[in-house]
């Protein structure tokens, strides 16, 4: 992120005496810093430490350190790893189409089309909706009888349709479509912002040189857009892998665990069965694997950037 940069001269010139300046800065920072420390840093460290204990909900005996016991159990927990696999399929299945669809939409919204303002406003409607409502809405779309999807299929004579969210084969693809839909605006807006930073003159110069649309995109647009694209796909992957509410409402992990994302699994472990320590270990395993995957992804991307 680009937050830390500041004009140095202003820091030097304004304020005057050193100690007084620092005092003032602390006064400005503390109101935000304290809640972050108490309700974000503290809990996270506490949560990590819980993964090495046998903490349970509502138990009277004191919680004990159990070392790596939770992780040993976790390694043998085939249900969790199945859920983990589903989580990865979901995260990739949502993030990749989301990026390409958003890129297409951003490119369109960046063109001088008629009613562009209206299209821009309508395109971000999903962003304003609660995830629970998005889930409910798509349940209505997928509904076997009253749903618009089966109704359309019947109208075009494409069979009677099916119960999309209860079918073993269709449930995961069906929720992935909803995931793509829900995150499209969040992905489109930064890409559109990035597109608007691409210098017009470069485009015009390339066009003068006879470069076609695809070449112009490859040589002018994409290099300028790449940092935004990299950041937004990485963030989307994290958010999608940790997603909860959408699938909780759509299928609650069913049918037969086919859509049980790791967060749903960990939620049940913690708040249905009260296994706080074990659930924390799951969370830690999730964040570790994500960190490794992202490091590989970002390193690979940066290397291609150097080669290019």
């Amino acid at each position, binding site marked *: *992120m*680009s*937050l*830390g*940069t*500041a004009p140095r001269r*202003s*820091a030097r010139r*304004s304020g005057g005496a050193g100690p007084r300046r620092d005092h003032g800065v602390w006064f*400005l*920072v503390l*109101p*935000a*810093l304290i*809640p*972050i420390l108490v*309700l974000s840093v503290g*809990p*996270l460290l*506490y*949560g990590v430490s819980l993964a090495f204990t046998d*903490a349970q909900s509502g138990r009277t005996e004191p919680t004990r350190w159990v070392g790596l016991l939770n992780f040993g159990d976790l390694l043998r927990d085939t249900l969790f790893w199945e859920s983990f696999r589903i989580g990865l399929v979901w995260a990739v299945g949502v993030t990749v189409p989301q990026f390409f*669809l958003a890129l297409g939409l951003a490119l*369109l*919204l960046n063109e001088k*089309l008629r009613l562009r303002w209206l*299209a*821009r406003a309508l*395109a971000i*409607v*999903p962003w*304003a*909706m*609660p*995830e629970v*409502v998005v889930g*409910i*809405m798509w*349940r*209505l*779309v997928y509904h076997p009888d*009253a*749903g*618009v999807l089966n109704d359309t299929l019947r109208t075009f004579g494409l069979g009677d349709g099916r119960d999309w969210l209860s079918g073993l084969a269709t449930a995961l693809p069906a929720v992935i479509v909803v995931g793509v839909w829900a995150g499209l605006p969040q992905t489109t807006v930064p890409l559109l*912002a990035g597109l608007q930073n691409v210098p017009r003159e470069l485009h015009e110069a390339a066009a003068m040189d006879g470069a076609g649309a695809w070449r112009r995109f490859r040589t002018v647009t994409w290099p300028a857009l790449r940092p935004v694209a990299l950041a937004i796909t990485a963030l989307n992957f*994290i*958010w999608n*892998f940790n997603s909860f*509410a959408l699938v*909780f*409402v759509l299928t*609650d992990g069913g049918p037969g665990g086919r859509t049980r994302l790791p967060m749903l699994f*960990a939620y049940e472990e*913690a*708040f249905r069965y009260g296994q706080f320590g074990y*659930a*924390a270990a799951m*969370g*830690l395993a999730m*964040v570790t694997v994500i960190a490794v995957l992202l490091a590989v992804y970002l390193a690979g991307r940066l290397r291609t950037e150097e080669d290019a």
Partner: protein
Amino acid sequence: MTARRGRTAAGRRRRAAATRSGQYLALLGYLIFLLVPFLWLVSTAFKPPRELGSIDPGWIPHDPTLANFRAAFAEQPLLRSAANSLLAAAGAAVLSVVVATPMAYVLARFRTRAARAATGWVVVSQAFPLVLVIIPLFLLLKAVGLVDSLGGLTLVYLVWSLPFALWMLTGYVRAVPVELEEAAAVDGAGRVRTLVSVTAPLLVPGIVATGLFAFITAWNEFFFALVLLKSPEKQTMPVVLTHFLGAEGVADLGPLAAAALLATVPGLVLFAVIQRRITGGMLAGAVKH
């Protein structure tokens, strides 16, 4: 030569026209994908039970009715849950801009290690699965008696909305020229005076947009509310909406759609208000590397 150039120009125009039509077609495709589910929700909310049960549900209800809305209010405590949501979301939004604005000012104007560390943390914390945060938060809030309380939830929402608030506000502060503040300093105004009487007024539109965004985020939030609020009379709207789904997933579709539609209205209205600013703020944040 001129004739040839004329032909190619005409050809280029034809190709440009074809490209344009293709673009409009693609845009139409996007809008259909994005809007059809929402329009179906609206349509379902106004359909009488008879049409909802039919095998061939149409787009436009034949006998549009408000019965679903009445039923929704009768089935679940929608009004009280809306009031709860409003309280938590408004509290979080106000607190969030109050504490984030001074910090965003520091982030934009100084290189303070503490401020940068806090920002770094805010970014890193995004990557952690909520389950790692919610268990300790639950235990912590329980220890101080803030579990099952809207106050506790408001505090959680405050911290949760800080990353985006800081990001947006830092962009808005950068947009205020440093020279204005320096001029005020030359005139003998102190740091706080300058901040309050010169910078803050220029930030008001940005602060309002950021606050409204924080409000929408908190209004829409589900996971923390699900875990932290147990008493039915304290639950927020998204949690109450899931009660319409029924234990076995057999839902009364009409009231479900009506309630879901109502829960969407504040977000949509506010988003329409701040839409330009959100895009602009992101842009500002992205430009100033």
